[in-house]
């Protein structure tokens, strides 16, 4: 079993959850999302984000609208669809459950 795979999978799940969370309160264009993810220390290179956004959009969780920009090409402003909102709720509860589970397990085995 490769540790790389496990870690990548963990990170991938968390990353999707975080993107959806960022878009929960208001819409944002990729650079804003990147800024936030960088603040949250979740991604290293920006290139990672674009395929993820496209995938979430294709899965019907995100939608976008175009907006002109003064500093370059027009921007895509992403926001959650209704499905996306539902999905995020699901993820939220799962995350909380997982946190609890992890905390519980760790408490039971204090030496780790």
């Amino acid at each position: 079993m490769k540790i790389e795979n496990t870690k990548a999978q963990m990170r991938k799940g968390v990353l999707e959850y975080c993107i959806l969370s960022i878009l929960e309160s208001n819409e944002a264009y990729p650079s804003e999302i990147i800024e936030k993810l960088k603040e949250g220390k979740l991604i290293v290179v920006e290139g990672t984000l674009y395929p993820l956004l496209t995938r979430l959009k294709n899965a019907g969780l995100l939608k976008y609208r175009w907006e002109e920009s003064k500093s370059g090409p027009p921007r895509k402003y992403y926001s959650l669809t209704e499905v996306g909102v539902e999905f995020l709720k699901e993820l939220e509860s799962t995350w909380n459950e997982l946190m609890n589970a992890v905390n519980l397990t760790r408490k039971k085995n204090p030496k780790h």
Partner: protein
Amino acid sequence: MNKTVTANISGVVFHIEADAYEKLHQYLNTIKNYFRDSDGTDEIMADIEARIAELFKEKLGLARDVITMENVKQVAEIMGEPEAYMDEENTSSYDNSSKSFYTEDRGPQASFSSRKLYRDEEDNALGGVCSGLGYYFGIDRIWIRIGFLIALFGFGTGFFLYLILWAIIPKAKTTSEKLEMKGEPINVENIGNTIKDEFNNFKKKVDSNDARQFVERTESVAMRFFIFLGNVLRFLFKFLSKILGVSFIIAAIAGVIALIVFVFSGPFDMTINNANFNHFWTTDIAQLYFTSNSMFYMGLIGVVLVVIIPLAGLLYVGARLLFNVPNSNRTINLSAVSLLILGIIFISISGTTTASDYAIEQRKTETINLTELQGDTIYLESIGNTYSAYRGGAEDVFIENDEIFMDEITVNVVKSRSAGYELRLKKSAQGRSRKLAGLRAENIMVGFEVEEDQLRISPLISVPFKDKVRDQGVQMSIGIPVGTTIYLHESANDIIYDIDNETNMRDRNMIGHYWKMTEDGLICADCVKSDYRKSRVPSRLIRIELDGLNSLESLVGLEKLLKLKNLEGIEKLQELEKMSNLEQLIELKRLGKILEDEDLENLELKITSNGSEINISL
């Protein structure tokens, strides 16, 4: 001065330096290739390009309006190399070649905080080997650098060790790899710290120009030395790889030329209808050796494939060393390997099919009575005439009027089994079956002429064209009755082979002499001592046991023997030669038995009679 081009990136027009454009183009292509298989490639690419355009806009501001190589590099760093996405994106296919550098597992949990060996390219003097080792062993990298420096003067071990480590230790690329290298537990906080470091590092790089960077990085003499060494090494590597590249290309081209020469000429010299078809593959030649033309072409194509593909590989490697040739793609590699395998299969099929037609050998014997041959003495000649030119050449075979001619005949002289002269033929040929081989053996024709006391034999045998060259050959024995004599004409030298004779003389020395058949074999009828000497074969020396002194006397005369015994030196030699001219000796030999051979120089005639011995020696 630098040429600029205009590029439209996501609808925004940029002026970009030509080399920077190339770099950007390459970068985008790599990303595109990476996303080739996922859906929405175009959209992802459009997004990425839009972001790149935005980044360029931000970077350029108002001060400059040309994008430089440096700008492209910065943007590529921000966006990241596809290899880095792989770790984030693709969870299954990333095969980490650094597996062997895993530290020992100290329990399942321990591996999270255990360190891995990576090269640290953020804090490098050369390849980041020392820095990576420093993290791995938990000591300051400066000590390791000093260690390498000391080892450098120990017969250059440090130098080679460094090169090897540089080559085998992977670079820490992704955040998690960098953390693994430093041995910090991987959690969100630490990832954050690393990213912050990275960002600061990046910012520093962006902010500082090259000169400042250099000053910052060269804080110590040791470091400056390493940077110098690095530059020398880089240059040396580049230089060596260029030389290697040139020699690879030259070797590959030479190979291709050799192959072309081989394909369009061929290993055989051929004479067809008296015209020299030297160095040409023709279908005729193919048919001589291969079972069919298609088998010949299959074999030839196989050989070409098996030779040309490694040559193409060599050419490619050479080109890569010399120029910036892109990585070979999978499809090309795969098809090259399949063509190579195809070539091997072709050669095997062609080879085994052809070889199977040589598998079984059959012999046929035949006796021809030479009733027309007259006289007690016959003369053996070889038919030279039209083929003499051929005989001089190195050709194996030639074709005339649907017949294949080969010089696969050997002629021996033996005692006849009948009262008259005869020719005994042993024909042999090969084929895929006993029957076919036998048929081919029977089809072999030998040529000979008889005219009064002359026997002329052709040095060539012929087979029908359809029989192909299948190791056909004829062993011919001329049978002559006891008491008759055969004269070997000079031309017979071409055909005679290992004729048995009682004086063990070699074939070429037997030429030009009369040979008489006795009950025991051939005896030279007109040879003198010098002929034997010439032959350098030990001449016959004779110890003879006789029934009685009487028979000895009646043969040679005791007087003669005693006279011999008393003579000395040259006189004895002359007398003995007279005596051994050699009807008498032949008779002596018939009566007695040859017990031993001795060198001519110690010629000894030893005759025992009822226990009493007469020794005659020179």
